[in-house]
């Protein structure tokens, strides 16, 4: 019987990423990892792309990981875990191993959307039994807040600094979650640590689904977002409530929005507490704020339409 995903039962489970790691206080990434590992019922082996999570959890003689863990390089967590998973299948076929093991790769947005994109796409296409989790904090935070293709429109980063001629990042985010879904893999989802139950249900569903799975999880970074140290959960909640970070899953090609905010908040509520968007509130940048809001509205509307389409077609087949 699987452990129910309730606080009482989960509190009895062992934390597989220990405290004492060197992530910044208030970082969203270790929260995401702890939730994902708590959700797992079977033993997990993890691969980790180079990045904050990796450099801060295994330094010299110390490791924060209580599970087998491998860091290879920046762009290849997916290829690396695909090697581990293939050796597992090989040895299992040969009768040299009998346990049921799950495989997860963790990467930041730089290591996933950008430099690790090819490796991830290849691993998804090959059909390895693995879950790739991107903890998306919207920039290269480990090297000092440089722009990535996941950086939101208008954000101030150290390589697209908001200046008098260029007001921060001028491009919209790459829609990686949908791109992964377009690989035709059985399960893709977007989650947020603010909605822990939703996140953990998705991880569990992903691990129970054979084949390649992808999850994109927002992970606030107070250093890069220029926000309060204790606001990670609050900001990830506002990200969901403003529909900046919609919570949905695409299971066998069927889209379902898993959390619908009762009242869709204006995007400025997400932008305002973050110093990286401060310049957008100057009077001359008003149009940029509007542009950002329009983008969020359009994405949310399209997502609901997509969900409605699948609900409708499911209904028609039932008749």
């Amino acid at each position, binding site marked *: 019987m699987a452990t129910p995903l309730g606080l009482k039962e989960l509190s009895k489970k062992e934390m597989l990423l220990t405290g004492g790691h060197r992530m910044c206080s208030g970082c969203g990434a270790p929260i995401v990892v702890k939730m994902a590992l708590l959700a797992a019922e079977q033993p997990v082996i993890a691969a980790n792309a180079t990045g904050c999570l990796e450099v801060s959890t295994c330094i010299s003689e110390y490791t924060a990981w209580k599970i087998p863990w491998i860091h290879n390089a920046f762009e290849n967590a997916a290829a690396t875990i695909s090697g581990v998973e293939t050796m597992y299948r090989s040895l299992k076929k040969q009768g040299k191993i009998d346990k049921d093991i799950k495989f997860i790769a963790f990467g930041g947005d730089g290591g996933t959307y950008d430099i690790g994109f*090819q490796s991830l796409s*290849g691993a998804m296409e090959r059909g390895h039994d693995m879950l790739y989790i991107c903890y998306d904090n919207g920039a290269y935070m480990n090297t000092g807040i440089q722009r990535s293709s996941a950086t939101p429109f208008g954000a101030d980063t150290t390589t697209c600094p908001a200046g008098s001629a260029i007001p921060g990042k001028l491009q919209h985010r790459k829609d990686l979650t949908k791109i992964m879904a377009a690989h035709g893999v059985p399960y893709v989802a977007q989650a947020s640590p603010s909605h822990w139950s939703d996140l953990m249900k998705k991880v569990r569903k992903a691990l129970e689904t054979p084949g390649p799975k992808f999850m994109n999880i927002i992970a606030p970074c107070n250093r890069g977002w220029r926000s309060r140290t204790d606001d990670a959960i609050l900001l990830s909640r506002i990200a969901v409530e403003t529909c900046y970070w919609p919570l949905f899953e695409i299971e066998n090609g069927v889209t379902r929005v898993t959390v619908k905010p009762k009242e869709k908040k204006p995007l400025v509520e997400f932008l305002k507490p973050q110093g990286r968007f401060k310049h957008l509130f100057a009077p001359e940048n008003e149009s940029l704020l509007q542009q950002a809001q329009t983008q969020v509205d359009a994405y949310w509307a399209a997502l609901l339409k997509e969900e409605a389409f699948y609900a409708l077609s499911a209904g028609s087949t039932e008749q």
Partner: protein
Amino acid sequence: MGQKSGKIVAVTGNEAVAEALRQVNPDVSAAYPITPATEIMQRFTAFVSNGKAKTEMILVESEHSAMSACIGASAAGGRVATSTSAQGLALMWEELFIASGTRLPIILALVNRAMSAPLNIHGDHSDGMGARDCGWIQLWSENAQEAYDNMIQSFRIAEHMDLRLPAMVCMDGFIISHSIERMEYLDDEAVKSFVGEFKTVNPLLDIEHPVSYGPLILTDYYMEYRRAHAEVMSKVKNVVLDVAKDFEKISGRQYGLFETYRLDDAEIGIVILNSAAGTTKDAVDAFREKGIKVGLLKPRLFRPFPYEEVGEALKHLKAICVLDRADAFGGSYGPLFMDIAATLFPYKEKPLMMNKIYGLGGRDYLPEHAENAIAELAEVAKTGQIKTFKEYIGVRE
């Protein structure tokens, strides 16, 4: 000499390497096509598809992912092999250091090919030379037989409990990879028992004993790790010799750290790698008949380079010509020359040395190139004067 269980065949170098892989039957192989190495994996995957090898294939989307997946698979705890050439090896470059630094005994068949640009698919040594300092073992092979024999021995060497280092087995692209030669295959059982069961060291798949691979190590311990690597490299030559002794028992073929040909009583000598050594041996014979005391040294274990032994073998010569199938741009001499010169550095009395760059991008190495080099060496030995320290041969002026 023919052995009890061997089988004489006529095959290409690629075919021979694929056969060695089938006989070793690794647990996992990750591969990506590139000329001229492609045929190895075409033939090997045909074995897998027909149940003749039990290897799980990972047909990746790039060589970078090929080596990345090999690293994951090897760390998981099993026997792993791949193959590539030139640009493929270059794309793996980052991962080559990670494989060796993580001490994973991955085997890579390198079919030597010229590096682009200009784009060229033919054989030279610029790929292998570019990877010589990445902490891998390198075994170089003159012909299909040596490539096959080196492949089989490489698993024993790399997986040796004193080493646990990745190894690449090099052979010349097209000249060897695509030429049919007469050679001998060993019996399947002989190869199987020679290579033995894979022994795991801290496998990731041992979930009862979780380990972390790939830590961040900064100024506090990085240097100790690198020195430990250098120390492990110094143990390779003894393992190579021990494995060669065992291999001789099943094959009748002798291998050392390098091959010498009519070198002991020679006054002048050629040093050359891989397939061109065959052509050069014929020239050596022809000059010997004319009374010129010439010999040859062909490195086999190129990394780690057996400096002392090579220096010992060459120090009595009056003059040496090192022929390089790659140049080390901006480094004055070709890469093999620089290593050979370093082996002689400790001696007060040392041979005169010259360097010739030949065969780049698959340019033919002809008997006359070997003959000209030997004639020039004879003159140098007589006069004690070198006219040209380094030159490109077989090239349009």
